[in-house]
């Protein structure tokens, strides 16, 4: 992969059953222009194949973090370096 538009290159991480369903722990992706929010990114990810459609089928329960801080679906992803998707946390 060559980096043509650095501002669109994102590291995406998946945890717990989101990781199991997407079949990967992380990837670097080139996100098309026009993807402004976390919700936009989820919509776009679901178009990338059946494993993503399955992983994000229950997108209402999936949580996100932008650069290691919890983020809402409406959060802007501009300038983000890394975005993570995961189920509600169950530690402690």
């Amino acid at each position: 992969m060559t980096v043509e538009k650095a501002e669109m290159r994102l590291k995406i991480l998946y945890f717990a059953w989101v990781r199991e369903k997407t079949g990967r722990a992380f990837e670097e992706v080139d996100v098309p222009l026009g993807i402004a929010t976390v919700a936009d990114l989820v919509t776009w990810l679901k178009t990338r194949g059946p494993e993503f459609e399955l992983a994000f089928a229950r997108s209402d329960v999936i949580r996100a973090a932008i650069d290691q801080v919890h983020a809402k679906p409406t959060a802007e992803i501009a300038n983000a370096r890394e975005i993570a998707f995961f189920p509600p946390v169950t530690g402690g």
Partner: protein
Amino acid sequence: MGVRVQTADFDLSMEVAALTTGRTDIGAIVTFTGTVRGEANGQPIALMSLEHYPGMTEAELARVEAEALARWPLSASLIVHRVGDLKPGDNIVLVVAASAHRQMAFDAAAFLMDYLKTRAPFWKKETGADSAGHWVDARDSDGEAIARWSSTG
């Protein structure tokens, strides 16, 4: 004030001693230890696997600890969370809160646990005796527990 994520077990006495030895300003030390129960929903479990988000975990735990310090004059606090494969009876998490007075130590320890359960990026997967694994669902009561604190800030 510390936050650690580790695969190794922890020792309660050693962790408390490291925080308090030589200090005479502390009057109350509350610890919470979370352990793996042998049953989940009436089914025996053989293994509990803990996954986390390295980097965010430490950052989130540090933010939670900073919020506790902004609310209570804690003398010392510590969060230790284990990751990896654990068995029933094993320790999962340790929270220590030390203060001059007991109510602050109790409140701070409960607060740290509530926030840890709702914000810290850890996920538990239980494996039953039949080797079937499933991810633990978040409990609604944890969301209610955290709501208590928003009106007391």
